[in-house]
């Protein structure tokens, strides 16, 4: 392929990944630091035969992509903290009605209007529990533009596979930083297309009856099967039900389809981890500082490595326990007050050996910030 090398912002890498994955409908509302995604797609998407619409608010953007998804399109919206809060009710709707969609949240400092638009990773828990009620959710993240591209493709694939909203949890530093991106050849990365029902016209189609493998083939609005979609608990036809058995089974289904597939949904990378006495667990732009520090300390013979998370939800508990089992100490590097820290502590056998290296002041955490904590842990003074 010619001209497949770009020097782009992370937000643009996300756009490239989305188009590669087959995005053909975007609805959004302006909010920094995610706006470049909308700006870029407003020109790119119509040229690629897709549709772009700027809606009247964040809520409408989320609702519009759900509507478009039901016509068979691959859909996406992008936002940041305050907008992510506003979208939560409709994200819950997509969980309940099992509508594939991708939501990019380029994180900035919160709560509320917060620290616009400085870097933060404070929406980790909101990505998990932002909408009300029990539900399963998938949230992916990345620390460099090549990976932003790849996990964006993954996000669309997982949304289609599990018929669920997928959150792309990026951050301001990744979103706005420029670096090299090599766009893979067509076919180099797998693409999961919409699974459509093979049930023919005139045969009773059950939109909410899972196959043996748990997947639910869809039928596009406008095609031969007319069915009901609702945010209420519903039976296999999609019709509202408060039958206790129906409610119980559906809630188990929307949670279990994610939690029972942690092994195939979760993604991570290992940097110098084989014999590491000190394991840094990090993700997003924070992971860049952790990797930089690990490289430098390795040169001095220190056994230190990084476990980089590329998916945060569902949390890879078993993998974390295994990878951290031999460590003298585990340092969670993130830009919030310990949201992934709490998960890691509950995953490992010795939570007392898990420490937090963080920054919450809107500045990117540096290798020096982490090193200072490391010295304390290692008993080498402050």
């Amino acid at each position, binding site marked *: 392929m010619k001209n497949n090398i770009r020097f782009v912002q992370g937000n643009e890498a996300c756009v490239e990944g989305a188009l590669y994955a087959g995005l053909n409908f975007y609805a959004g509302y302006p909010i920094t630091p995610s706006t470049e995604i909308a700006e870029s797609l407003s020109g790119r998407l119509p040229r690629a035969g897709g549709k772009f*619409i700027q*809606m009247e608010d964040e809520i409408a953007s989320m609702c*519009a992509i759900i509507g478009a998804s039901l*016509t068979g399109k691959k859909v996406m919206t992008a936002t940041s903290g305050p907008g992510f809060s506003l979208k939560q009710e409709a994200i819950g*709707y997509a969980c309940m009605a099992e509508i594939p969609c991708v939501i990019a949240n380029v994180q900035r400092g919160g709560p509320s209007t917060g620290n616009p638009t400085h870097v933060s990773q404070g929406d980790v828990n909101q990505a998990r529990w932002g909408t009300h009620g029990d539900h399963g959710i998938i949230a992916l993240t990345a620390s460099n533009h090549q990976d932003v591209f790849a996990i964006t493709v993954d996000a669309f694939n997982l949304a289609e596979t599990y018929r669920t909203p997928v959150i792309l949890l990026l951050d301001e530093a990744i979103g706005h930083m420029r670096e090299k991106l090599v766009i893979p050849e067509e076919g180099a990365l797998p693409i999961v297309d919409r699974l459509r029902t093979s049930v023919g016209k005139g045969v009773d189609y059950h939109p909410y009856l899972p196959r043996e493998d748990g997947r639910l083939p869809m039928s596009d*609005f*406008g095609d031969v099967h*007319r*069915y009901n979609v609702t945010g209420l608990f519903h039976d296999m036809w999609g019709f509202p039900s408060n039958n206790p058995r129906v409610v119980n089974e559906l809630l188990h289904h929307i949670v279990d389809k994610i939690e029972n597939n942690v092994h195939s949904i979760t993604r991570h990378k290992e940097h110098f981890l084989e014999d590491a006495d000190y394991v840094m667990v990090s993700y997003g732009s924070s992971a860049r500082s952790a990797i930089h520090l690990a490289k430098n300390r390795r040169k001095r013979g220190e056994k230190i490595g990084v476990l980089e998370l590329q998916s945060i939800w569902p949390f890879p508990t078993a993998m974390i326990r295994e990878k951290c089992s031999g460590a003298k100490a585990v340092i969670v590097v993130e830009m919030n007050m310990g949201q992934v820290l709490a998960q890691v502590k509950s995953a490992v056998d010795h939570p007392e050996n898990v420490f937090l290296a963080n920054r919450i002041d809107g500045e990117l955490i540096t290798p020096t910030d982490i090193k200072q904590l490391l010295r304390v842990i290692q008993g080498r003074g402050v």
Partner: protein
Amino acid sequence: MAIKDYLRQRFFPHIWCPGCGHGIVLSSLLHAVEELGLAKNDIVMTSGIGCSARISGYVDFHSLHTLHGRALAFATGVKLAKPALNLLVPMGDGDALAIGGNHFIHAARRNINITAIVMNNRIYGMTGGQFSPLSGCGKRATTAPFLTIDQEFDVVKLAKAAGASFVARSTTYHAKESTLYLKKAIMHKGFSVVEILSQCPTHYGRKNKEGDAPDMLELYKDTTAKLGSKALEKNPDLIPRGIFVEEERGEYCEEYDKLVDKAMGGAR
């Protein structure tokens, strides 16, 4: 096709109270669809939350029962993604104009080809009778024990000001007239609004001494008059019924395609 062929009869009985006007609205709407000869596969009905919103479950179209106030936002996504589909969006008064007010005015502004039907019973029925932005002043509701002081919206004026290119009003007493307006609204290219006054004897009628369903229907006969009628001329306090706006204006999905064609210099 018979009217019952447009219903999902296995999901009956419906949830509406005896005497509720919403069944009459449903009937008027299905007659409109039947008389126009529209194919069921070409119709998507989206609705929000409330008594009115349950209408989408009962019809044999593609149906999308969504969030409170958001039916038009979902419908906009469906329509722009697949413009060949006919979008019918019945909403309650609180649904359309309180929590959903923003989507209502912006759908009108875009002039996107969607038919919005405001089933106006002037009350939040499903939650037990709280006042809505269409209740008006001096009304009794469970959240207004000393009567309401809130001014109501005039749906017709609001829709017109926001840019809807077809606006009509009728009542459940005038079911055949409603069908006529709904037919015109569905055939109209652009955003169309049909307000249908619909009685809620359970939560509005009883509290406001308007009697039971037959009395409330009689009241629609007595307190409304057709646009241009002598009755309205004599008594301007009557609520006007009729078609208030019917204009040709660029429709959003068509304008979108034209714009993209132009930008691409015919390369599409």
